[in-house]
């Protein structure tokens, strides 16, 4: 292949996925742009944003990949029930990872801000927001990933190519929106 052919093929194959994730990212951005009041009130909240968004992709993208591989190998059935031990374990582990790493990110944020002598909300406030956001977004993304992977597989689609775009488009929106909801709940309960 010539340079021109390589470039043209790479461009054509990548553009749709990038366009889709741009749309998801823009909607996440609109939510972030609308939470300026909360960002101002809770010092350090913005520091958490990139870490929380990356976590959503890393944890629930990996859940999708794991379920996709297991479907291909015939290890799990694409049916919605609560008695498949493998699916239950994969979902529970993803939720545990998602919630734990959100809490760890909040603790590291407070430590980092205090080391840099920059203003920061209390440890309890940021940890509470991160844990709550981690839990709500985890439940929503788990439902989204499991549904799309199972339904897609039953309709003859390759789950490996479905999970990635679903997580990249919904992950950012769900990540920012749940951060806003969690912040409002914690502030209403007296944090800040």
């Amino acid at each position, binding site marked *: *292949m*010539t*340079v*021109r*052919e*390589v*470039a043209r093929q*790479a*461009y054509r194959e*990548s*553009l749709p*996925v*990038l*366009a889709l*994730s*741009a*749309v*998801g*990212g*823009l909607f*996440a*951005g*609109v939510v*972030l*742009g*609308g939470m*300026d009041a909360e960002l*101002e009130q809770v010092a350090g909240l*913005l*520091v*958490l*944003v*990139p*870490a929380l*968004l*990356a*976590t959503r992709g*890393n*944890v629930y993208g990996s859940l999708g990949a*794991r379920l996709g591989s297991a479907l291909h190998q015939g*290890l799990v059935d694409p049916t919605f029930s609560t008695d498949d*031990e*493998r699916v239950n*374990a*994969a979902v529970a*582990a*993803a939720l545990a*990872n998602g919630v*734990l*790493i959100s809490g*760890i*990110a909040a603790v*590291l*944020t407070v430590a*980092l*801000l205090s080391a840099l002598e*920059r203003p920061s909300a209390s440890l309890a406030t940021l940890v509470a927001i991160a844990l709550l956001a981690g839990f709500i977004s985890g439940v929503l993304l788990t439902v989204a990933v499991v549904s799309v992977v199972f339904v897609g597989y039953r309709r003859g689609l390759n789950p490996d190519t479905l999970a990635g775009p679903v997580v*990249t488009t919904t992950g*950012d929106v769900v990540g*920012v929106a749940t951060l806003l909801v969690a912040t409002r709940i914690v502030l209403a309960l007296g944090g800040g």
Partner: protein
Amino acid sequence: MGVSEWTVRGIVRRMLPVLVVLTAIELGSGIVLNTFEATLLRYPTLLVLVPVTIGMAGNLGSILAARFSTALHLGLLSFDVDDDRLVGNAIATMALAVTVFPLMGAGAWLLQKVVGGTRLTLPTVVGVALLSGTVLAALAVAVTTITTYAAYRFELNPDDVVIPVVTNVCDVLGVLVLFGAVRILV
């Protein structure tokens, strides 16, 4: 595959350490955001650009990394400035950035205009997005090429190493470059 492959404890134990390292890297970009938080809060249109810029920088890097990795596995890639696949994919990455980033800028401006009004002009926001995208694409090509080459030299599987490194490094670079573009143009 061990017995812990499908246990909660096994999955958490294998993934959590990696997540902690990636989170520490991502907090770097959080600190950069914190540094120009006042500007972002004054111009919410720029805040709208934050998640999509981070995401797109990571996506450009990870797509390029996946393509390099596959070509390397198939023995079709050599690290030479004359290599067709290397140069072709690098050109495609630049072209994708130049296509997508201005549209993202226009989209961010339009959405913010509809939702809450904007103090920045359309050309300024498109300019910030285009400048960020062009610089980011060049950096994504450099980071991906160097990381893939390093994995190849150290005989590591590029699928395991390159994609997480490139995606998270590009996330951090995304915020840094956006910061630079805002400093220059706003």
